[in-house]
């Protein structure tokens, strides 16, 4: 393959950002997410331990189940003792909690926030609604399965799940991270086109950049 072909391929790989107006397109990046190669085995193991012991959460209270997130911070459940702390910005958090059903309007925000998080990033989906739609399975405006749109690491079932089950979910997530099983970020990058197609299929007014780095 000569240089010209390479350039053409690179051009094709760029994101079109078609949802944006002509003027806005240049303001946003057109790069696609790329999978990150793991470091040395032992370094990665050590880092995974640190990642598991310091989970900074970005709580997105999309549905009623999110009400169970608040008691976690209180003295009764005290999530801080597990190294879990809330963080106000997607840039700094590593765990994204989808708090219940996602309407078509919120899935857009979910995608944006998820993409803005800096990897490695993990997703906990809370409540039956995120698994199969729950009691809103036939609603016209809620989506049924979160993991068609972003990769989910842990589901916490229940309607609504108690804070204890959330903590159990966190502990399971920790185990998985330590075992190196949580690779949602690379999964998203590798299957980027599939996820984008799914997202664009349901989000009709797509007026944001294709990838929100």
């Amino acid at each position, binding site marked *: 393959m000569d240089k010209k072909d390479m350039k053409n391929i690179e051009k094709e790989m760029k994101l079109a950002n078609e949802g944006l107006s002509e003027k806005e397109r240049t303001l946003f990046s057109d790069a696609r997410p790329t999978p990150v190669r793991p470091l040395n085995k032992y370094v990665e193991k050590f880092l995974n331990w*640190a990642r598991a012991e310091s989970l900074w959460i970005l709580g997105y209270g999309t549905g009623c189940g999110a009400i169970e997130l608040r008691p976690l911070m209180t*003295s009764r459940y005290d999530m801080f003792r597990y190294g879990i702390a809330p963080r106000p910005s997607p840039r*700094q958090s590593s765990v994204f909690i989808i708090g219940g059903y996602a309407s078509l309007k919120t899935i857009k925000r979910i995608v944006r926030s998820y993409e803005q998080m800096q990897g490695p990033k993990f997703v906990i989906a809370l409540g039956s609604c995120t698994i199969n739609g729950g009691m809103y399975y036939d609603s016209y405006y809620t989506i049924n399965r979160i993991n068609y749109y972003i990769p989910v690491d842990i589901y916490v079932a229940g309607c609504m799940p108690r804070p204890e089950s959330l903590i159990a979910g966190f502990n399971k997530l920790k185990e998985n991270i330590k075992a190196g099983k949580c690779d949602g970020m690379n999964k998203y990058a590798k299957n980027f086109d599939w996820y984008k197609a799914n997202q664009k299929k349901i989000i009709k007014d797509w007026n944001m950049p294709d990838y929100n780095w």
Partner: protein
Amino acid sequence: MSITTKALYVIISVIVATIYGLALNGVVRKIYARVHGRFGPPVWQPFIDIIKTHGNNVAISHGIMYYLGPVFRLAGGLGTYLFIPVIFGSVVFSNFSLAGDLLLVMYFIFFGQLGMALGAGEGGHPYSPIGIARGLAQMTTFEVPFALSVIALAIQYNTLNITTIVAAQQGSILNWTLFTNPLAVVAAMISLLGMNMHSPFSIVLAPQEIPIGPPIEMNSSFLATLQTNRGLFGAAKLVLFMNLYFGGAAHANIFVALLIMILKTFIIYMFSVFVGAAYPRFRPEQSMRFFLKWPTLIGIASILFVAYF
């Protein structure tokens, strides 16, 4: 002393201070948790947090100034720390103490904040300029009582060299500035409340209204740099206060001296922690008015006190 030994000593001193500052943060989180009736995170949580943020495998940058913001902040912390003699009479922990270093240290306390202001501004998040505006405004006001109290010290000890000020306080506990010039200490301790940004004066980071303010866009290694600096800078400020007002740390045995340093700075820090755990937050204008009222008057009184009595 050769330059390599000096460099080695400085590195040891910086590492000790950073670890101490971070551990102190961990202990304080634990104390806050106990006040709330919780167990709280383990004491070593700040270290894990830093390892984790450094270990992120992606970091988004918004431009050159954004890159330099945390660097400036760390430079401010390092600069503050490196010109403060940590332990009186110790070679390893004397850092780069020189004549007139007190002015330099005061400058460096401000420097980091300015650098951070430029860096965070480029992040483009609307909350960072709000946090920066609040931070700089509050900083200017709490600097007033602190500067007045330093002027009182300069008149009292006839020097701006921290080592000389510490030397003048040796001998007896009654030689401490705390007893020779209590008004200056009161003014400075109130401004320390602002410096440490604990509760009544936590308008800069204000997690509930402007989610953590200036560093909101900072991620991965940028954030880890800021966190490291928080440990170092926190320790540096406390050591400075210990030197200026509470007799410094001096002992023939370096480890005993370190223990004394830890004990004294811990107690100094607890002052702002207890105030923070007990009081709700001021609004920006309240906080600024506060510093310009009583602490400033007390600062002026302390100068009159040393000048005329």
